[in-house]
């Protein structure tokens, strides 16, 4: 028989629960809920911004988006400068494990003695030390493969300059922070640099970006630049100049090549030069872009301007005879000489044989103001309109301060100064039908618009004289090329040392154009202190002119305007300087 249990009537359960207990529980739960609600309100309303920020700090990151530096191209689209990855190796000295064989391998990879490396890692207090900046990608991979604790690589970029020393002065270089220091890299730094951007992202626990948050600032890459320079012409200019400087045992030299139609700079070469990637032990001599920064007295290369002015104002014609005997002329007590007496010369012949006396006699017929105006219009004493660091203006004193003897010497290029670049540009007056045209380092498609200095007729007459000067019986027959007619003026000057002139130090140059009837290029050559026996511009600088013209015109596809049979070169007439 089963016993039934009457729970409801259990005496244990019969006692009634006090009401306050249930009320207490309900109240406690209610208070709990209130607490939660208050906390929720605090988190979501009152302290929301703080918590939002704290949350973000824990999982969002701001990534910098570096902008790529623009590349530099030559006029044919060939790379002159470009950024390539070059990781920088750094370390936390305290964390680096002192494993000698591994450290030895590291030192070898970094191409530095072990002693230097240990010295860098000596200072335990430092939390960061560069071991080597901007190493090759392969070196960085080797180092990563070593797996040395405490050694890290940071992504950086460095500039590569494939054309090396031939283009060094034009392109320049950047420093380790990727800022332009010289040349085009410095001039156009703003355009090339671009602007870095940034983005906010959420990263997961593996450090992977999983989401973008907030606004992104995209990086603006630097602009690519296309220069007017032709790397082949530049190379030939550099090569021929280098050979001439070495064979003449000269101190330095420069060559400028301009497009006679557009005013574009096709080449600016200087020697000595440097390799932009290897700049250790660089001297100021190597660094100077002499063609633009160094000024000198242009000497005989100025004569065509004096003669041009006299022709333009109708004071003389190319056939007017000037008596240059006895080879000297005295102006207010000072005597001006020719290298030897020439007797009566036509104006054309004055340029051809480069007579100082003839030029002086013509110049003294003109007021100083007119000469000053012409020289100024031709760009002398004025900064060339070219954006290049260190371009100088040269010196041309106001005409009011000219004494008669100074007017005389200035007519043949003494008492004023100009850079080789200014000289080259000034000759656009003759090549461009009497107009001086603005020059540019950037590629230009439209033809240049110039300012009229001489009439086209005068320009043509002077071109003919320049052709005679560079021909048989002139001072620069070595300037002749095979196939192309050339015209130009040689110059030789004693170098200024202190307040006077050095008797045994010279500067030789040649400025000219080709083909002479419709010039396509202007080439100016300067050789500083040739000391192998020869120092006349017609002998030292003219051959460089000839070779540069020859190669440049061939490269530009200009058809020869002369018979292409090899020409015999006659002996140069000794010029006056």
């Amino acid at each position, binding site marked *: 028989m089963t016993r039934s249990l009457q729970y409801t009537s259990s005496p244990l359960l019969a006692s009634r629960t006090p009401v306050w207990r249930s009320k207490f529980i309900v109240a406690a739960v209610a208070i709990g809920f209130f607490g939660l609600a208050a906390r929720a309100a605090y988190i979501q309303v009152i302290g929301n911004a703080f918590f939002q920020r704290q949350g973000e700090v824990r999982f969002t990151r701001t990534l910098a988006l570096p902008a790529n530096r623009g590349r530099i191209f030559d006029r044919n689209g060939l790379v002159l400068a470009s950024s390539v990855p070059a990781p920088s190796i750094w370390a936390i000295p305290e964390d680096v494990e002192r494993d000698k064989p591994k450290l030895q391998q590291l030192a070898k990879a970094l191409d530095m003695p072990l002693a230097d490396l240990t010295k860098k890692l000596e200072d335990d207090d430092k939390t960061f030390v560069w071991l080597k900046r901007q190493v090759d990608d392969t070196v960085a991979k080797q180092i990563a493969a070593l797996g040395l604790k405490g050694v890290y690589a940071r992504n950086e970029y460095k500039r590569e300059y494939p054309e090396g020393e031939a283009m060094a002065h034009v392109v320049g270089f950047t420093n380790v922070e990727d800022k332009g220091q010289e040349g085009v890299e410095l001039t156009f730094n703003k355009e090339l640099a671009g602007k870095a951007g940034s983005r906010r992202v959420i990263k997961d626990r593996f450090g992977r970006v999983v989401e973008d948050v907030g606004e992104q600032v995209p990086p603006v890459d630097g602009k690519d630049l296309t220069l007017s320079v032709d790397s082949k012409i530049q190379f030939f200019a550099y090569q021929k100049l280098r050979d001439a400087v070495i064979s003449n045992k000269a101190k330095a030299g420069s060559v400028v090549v301009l497009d006679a139609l557009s005013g574009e700079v096709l080449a600016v070469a200087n020697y000595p030069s440097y390799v932009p990637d290897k700049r250790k032990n660089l001297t100021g001599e190597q660094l100077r872009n002499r063609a633009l920064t160094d000024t000198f007295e242009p000497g005989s290369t100025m004569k065509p301007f004096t003669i041009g002015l006299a022709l333009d104002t109708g004071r003389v014609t190319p056939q007017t005879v000037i008596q240059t005997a006895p080879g000297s002329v005295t102006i207010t007590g000072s005597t001006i000489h020719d290298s030897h007496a020439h007797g009566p010369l036509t104006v054309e012949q004055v340029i051809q044989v480069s007579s100082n006396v003839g030029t002086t006699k013509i110049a003294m017929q003109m007021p100083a103001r007119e000469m000053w105006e012409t020289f100024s219009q031709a760009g002398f004493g004025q900064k060339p309109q070219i954006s290049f660091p260190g371009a100088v203006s040269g010196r041309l004193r106001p005409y009011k301060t000219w004494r008669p003897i100074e007017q005389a010497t200035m007519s043949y290029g003494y008492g004023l100064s100009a850079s080789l670049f200014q000289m080259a540009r000034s000759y656009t007056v003759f090549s461009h039908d009497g107009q001086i045209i603005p020059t540019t380092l950037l590629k230009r498609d439209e033809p240049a618009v110039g300012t009229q200095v001489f009439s086209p007729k005068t320009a043509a007459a002077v071109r003919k004289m320049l052709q005679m000067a560079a021909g048989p019986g002139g001072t620069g027959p070595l300037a002749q090329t095979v*196939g192309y007619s050339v015209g130009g003026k040689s110059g030789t000057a004693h170098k200024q040392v202190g307040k006077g002139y050095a008797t045994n130090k010279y500067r030789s140059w040649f400025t000219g154009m080709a083909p002479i009837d419709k010039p396509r290029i202007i080439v100016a050559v300067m050789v500083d202190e040739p000391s192998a026996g020869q120092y006349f511009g017609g002998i030292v600088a003219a051959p460089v002119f000839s070779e540069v013209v020859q190669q440049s015109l061939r490269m530009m596809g200009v058809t020869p305007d002369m018979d292409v049979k090899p020409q015999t070169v006659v002996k140069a007439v000794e010029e006056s300087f």
Partner: protein
Amino acid sequence: MTRLNLILLVAVITSAMYLVHTQYASRRLFQDLEHATTDAHKLAVENDGLEVQRRSKATPLRIEKLAKMQLQMRTANPAITQYVTYSESK
């Protein structure tokens, strides 16, 4: 009423799970996109580097040296160049 509530509860839970899944999938895809973008950038940089390398192997200075030394070539000048005229008419 209870049935409706249950249906709604299931719907809410399903939707919530799906949201989690979608978020996960979107992050995976975003990661892939990131990878692809990084790779593209790397390749572009590598391309630039290779272009520079190619150029430095083909600079006039190097070509001239090789042409003269290895191929015994000489620089052309008009004396040894034949110029031909081109006419448009057939």
